[in-house]
């Protein structure tokens, strides 16, 4: 470890290149910024999921997410409609304000419709995963795009959870627990249940080493 207090000289900032140990860098994947997942998630029954191929989650997850979005929208927008209706009918406010109130409700509902319909597709396009012998790599997030790597040897335990809607579409969420602090749980939603189980089995089929 070198000095903490040392001043940083005026040397020109150099682009860092990995020259020391290039084979750790996987030259087969030169740019990983925006990978194009080559396959949908299914692997067939015999093939292992741990083949290092970038996969998308189940397309059905779009439908499931849309339905849950619509349900949420129905509740929110319905509540908003009742409140707006009451205010418009009973408040005795001037007409322009009442009209504006209705306008706001209509706008929010339209925006909600667009979100409920469009967001799941955006999310699906931005969600992918890659499992290999070393562990799992998860990409997700529409605005904040994350790539998370969890090695198999760091996984404490995993959950596969299914909500009612997910059960209907045979989907599942894989939840990975590590001993970490900030990202102690990493989840991947929208997998088909079978794939989630496959990934789980692969991830926790360790050497059975319990020596923490």
């Amino acid at each position, binding site marked *: *470890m*070198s*000095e*903490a*207090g040392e001043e*940083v000289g005026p040397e020109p*900032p*150099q*682009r*860092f290149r*990995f020259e020391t140990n290039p084979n*750790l*860098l*996987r030259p087969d*994947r030169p*740019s*990983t*910024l925006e990978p194009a997942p080559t396959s949908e998630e299914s692997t067939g029954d015999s093939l292992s999921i741990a083949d290092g191929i970038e996969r998308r989650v189940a397309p059905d997850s779009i439908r499931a997410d849309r339905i849950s979005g619509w349900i949420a929208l129905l509740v929110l927008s319905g509540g908003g409609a009742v409140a707006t209706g009451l205010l418009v009918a009973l408040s005795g406010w001037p007409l322009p304000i009442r009209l504006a109130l209705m306008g706001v409700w209509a706008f929010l509902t339209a925006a909600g419709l667009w979100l409920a319909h469009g967001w799941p597709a955006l999310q699906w396009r931005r969600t992918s995963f890659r499992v290999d012998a*070393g*562990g799992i*790599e998860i990409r997700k*997030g529409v*605005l*904040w*795009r*994350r*790539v*998370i*790597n*969890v*090695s*198999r*040897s*760091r996984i*404490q335990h995993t959950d596969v959870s299914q909500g009612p809607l997910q059960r209907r579409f045979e989907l599942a969420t894989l939840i990975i627990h*590590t*001993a*970490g*602090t*900030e*990202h*102690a749980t*990493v989840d991947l939603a929208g997998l088909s249940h079978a794939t989630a189980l496959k990934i789980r089995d692969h991830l926790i089929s360790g050497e059975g*080493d*319990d*020596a*923490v």
Partner: protein
Amino acid sequence: MPSDHEVAAGPSAPRRLSAAPTEGQRLHPFSLLFSIGQAARNLLIPGLLVWFAADNNRYELFLMVLFVPATLRALLKYATFRYRFAEGELVMKEGLIFRNERHVPFHRIQNIDWTQNPLHRLLRVASVRVETAGGTEPEAELQVLTVPAAEEMRHRVFEEKRRAGDPAAASLWVPDASEKRELARLGVGDLVLLGLISNRGLAIAAAGLGVAWELDFFDPSKWEEWFAGSLGQFIERVPDTWLWRSTLILAAILTAIVALRLLSVAWALLQFWNFRLAEQESGLRATYGFFTRHTSTIPRPRVQLVTQIESIGQRWVGRRGLRVVTAGGDADDDDQSRRRWLLPIGERKVVARLADLVQPETAAPDLDWQPVEGRAFRRVVKRELLIAVGVLVLPVLWWSAWWGTVVLLTVPWAIWDARARVRRMRWALSGAGFHFRSGLWTHKVSAVRFNKIQTVQCVRSPFDRRYGMATLAVDIAGLGNADHRIHVRYLDSELAESLRVRLANEAATTRFRW
């Protein structure tokens, strides 16, 4: 006692119920004293405050009622608690109606810590904590054992671990006698220095004010009395000129500063009195404390992160501190947080050497510190100027041209701040670890071994994407709020990606051990 009593519980079954008659060793009878004492402290002090403040005696009765269950619990625990060393595990039983039997396999025990306050020392007993890796609270707290019993516990557990051939465990503990050498010692001078540059006094003063508030010290009528008394007369006697007024204010400020510094010094002296850090076979042991003497053992394999810290005050006097993050225990617990100081203050060279000694894998004489993207300066300065001008300068300018011109000074400050902030942030790779440094006011330099990396994450916010940048976040176990988080911001996004892949591969090819 080692017994041939059958024990079948594996690591997955730490708790088991059993109706078998208890056997094994008891706690020391003084346990009653300490448990009841603890209950008294927890109940009495807040109770007394309320009592004084409320000016009536109802609370006395209330307190007595609260005491009964605490005393009963202490009695029950003392009467029923037994522990014994079984094959491969430590077994503790307690309870009369609801019986609880806990099996802690030796290989899961990470540390046996004991605490002795002056009363403990007087009575020759110790409060022992058995810590395992997971979870936020110690697996078992044995309050209290005699010193020989505590020594035996430590000896047995670690001998068993060693015999079991646990490679990591074999090096975890060595008896007191095998202390190899002393690494650091803090004298009174060091502690005074530590107090002078720390701001702990402020926290103590704030706590004091809180208590004073509880006690209605801030009753306006009392203030008036006080002011009408000596202080008021003194102030009235001061000539009413600008010079005298400002002198008085200055004197008041100076007094406050001196008082706060003195409080800080007192805190440092009490907290870290006779601080000694010694090296053992494969770990470190720190002992310190004036009233309560703390002994913490830090097994080297358990260290997750090593951070060297330089606050402004420490930089002024050419010192820095060393903190380590270890897994297990609640990181934000005050007690745990204090334990993380491997050396609260020391000369730069000493601390840097110590950091290498704690984590030899990441010791690298000349690290190739890499800057973050050069474009980051423009990005940060834009943001800071937007905030400075939009939030401060424009509203003030609108209100008063003169003051607006004054606050215009925040503009060069924002530029300097952005520049320094970006230039401080650097990262480096060494053979076995990742290094990160950041911090404008408090400089922090951290090193994490690859095998302690839990997850690696690369995040691109909408702003990041606009500038072609990304943040690399490395997560490790046991981080608390005050610890240095490894978030390397403003990296070129391609570089961040290759770093992520590299670190993920390094993590995947190493085995994690707590």
